[in-house]
């Protein structure tokens, strides 16, 4: 019995190879472009636009605004929902801000939340503040700034940044304000 000879088509493989190279080049270019975007975003911020919580750097609202201005990020349809909740410690409010963010053709929806129970607004010297003592408008505004922060960071991929990233962008990390929350 004669063995069937199977002709190996070389042409398609070559095309596939080219396509792979092109894809690799494209993705390399894309990675390089993303890196450039992150570096550019960091470059226009300074130590005042960051805070350190633990050893993690966090972009502040002012920093996010600066970055949004540089990249021309738009946002619209912003809405803040207020939710009254209650537990054994009493009533509290939860604010959820949603908006659509746009950069070029890319559009995403981002969410920001804040609560009257947050460490910053709801607690003093390890004790929960009475609801009437909480600066509720500021809690609401924080939901809004958190939403802007999340939208800008997600659009540009500015997440999980390290102090080393900031340092290499020329930010004086020694001058960054450290945020601590007192437990008692």
């Amino acid at each position, binding site marked *: 019995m004669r063995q069937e000879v199977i002709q190996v088509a070389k042409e398609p493989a070559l095309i596939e190879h080219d396509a792979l190279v092109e894809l690799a080049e494209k993705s390399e270019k894309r990675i390089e*472009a993303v890196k*450039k*975007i992150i*570096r*550019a975003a960091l*470059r*226009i911020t300074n130590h005042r636009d960051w805070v350190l919580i633990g050893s993690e750097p966090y972009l502040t609202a002012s920093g996010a*605004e600066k970055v*949004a*201005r*540089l*990249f*021309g*990020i*738009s*946002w*619209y*349809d*912003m*809405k*803040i929902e207020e939710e009254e909740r209650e537990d054994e410690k009493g009533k509290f409010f939860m604010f959820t801000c949603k908006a659509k963010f746009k*950069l*070029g053709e890319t559009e995403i929806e981002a969410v920001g939340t804040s609560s009257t129970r947050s460490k910053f607004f709801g607690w003093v010297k390890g004790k929960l503040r009475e609801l009437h003592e909480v*600066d*509720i*408008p*500021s809690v*609401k*505004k924080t*939901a*809004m700034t958190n939403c802007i922060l999340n939208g800008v960071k997600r659009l540009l991929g500015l997440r999980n940044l390290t102090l080393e990233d900031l340092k*290499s*962008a*020329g930010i004086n990390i020694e001058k960054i304000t450290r945020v601590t929350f007192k437990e008692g």
Partner: protein
Amino acid sequence: MIVEKIQEFIEKKKRITPCHVNRASEIGHPCYRYLYFLRTAWDQAQLPTYKQQLVFDEGKLQEKAVLRLLEDAGFDIVATQRPYEIKELKLVGHIDAVVFINKSFFPIEIKSMSPFFFESLHTVKDFLNHKYAHIRKIPFQLQAYLMLAKLKEAVLLLKNRSSGELKEIVVTQDEKMQNEIRVKCQTINDLVEKQVAPEIHEEFDETICSMCRFAHICLPDVKRKDELKLIEDEELIALLEKREQLKPFHDEYLEVDKILSKRLEGIEKAIIGDFIITGKWVKRREYKVPETTYWKKRILRIKKP
């Protein structure tokens, strides 16, 4: 230890006051929506931050110090913080002081400021053309005081917070600005009565909206058309790199040339080392630079080499 306790005290001082009328100190604000929310949603305004509260308190302290200085200098202060009102406009204001000088009464508004602002403000026009809205609204406050006190002239007394220096700017009655105030008050009063908030501005003003204490109520759309472009132009990249390489030499050249210009001033002819130096006084002709527009560029390197 000390600062912490003071911070706690300052935090407790932060408060907002009810507002059912148009305030002279705010009437120059460019946003009708802000002025509307001041009347209708004052209880939802964001409280000042710790730093803002410190600035307010510092302003009050400086105001007291200036008033004391005026008294010590022999000025006849006839009233301080006296409230005034124009009922039909629902316009109110508390004038810092009214001083009796040369048989006339002058309302005085005291503003203490950073050296940067102090050095840049000399005339009412400087205030009106200023980059920041909180500076642009000051002349309107003074015009409102003139309307309230039914006077023709007021004095804006500026204090440099760093050096203690004082500067006075005489503000005279301006019919156009006062009419603007009247229209603004009437418009806001009508809208408040109808409970209709003014439309949101089409253009988001970065210097006003992002700092606004009603931003969480107003929720404006932020439409930016100037998207950042990623340009991959090898020639442009090479030119930018070259510019970056040459920049330190250019800066050094300018610095050295400046020193040489100073040192060689007045030397008409000389040989210095391997150089022949000549010089003469040249009369610079006066000419007017015609108004044009030009493209202002700023180049910032993303990554240090």
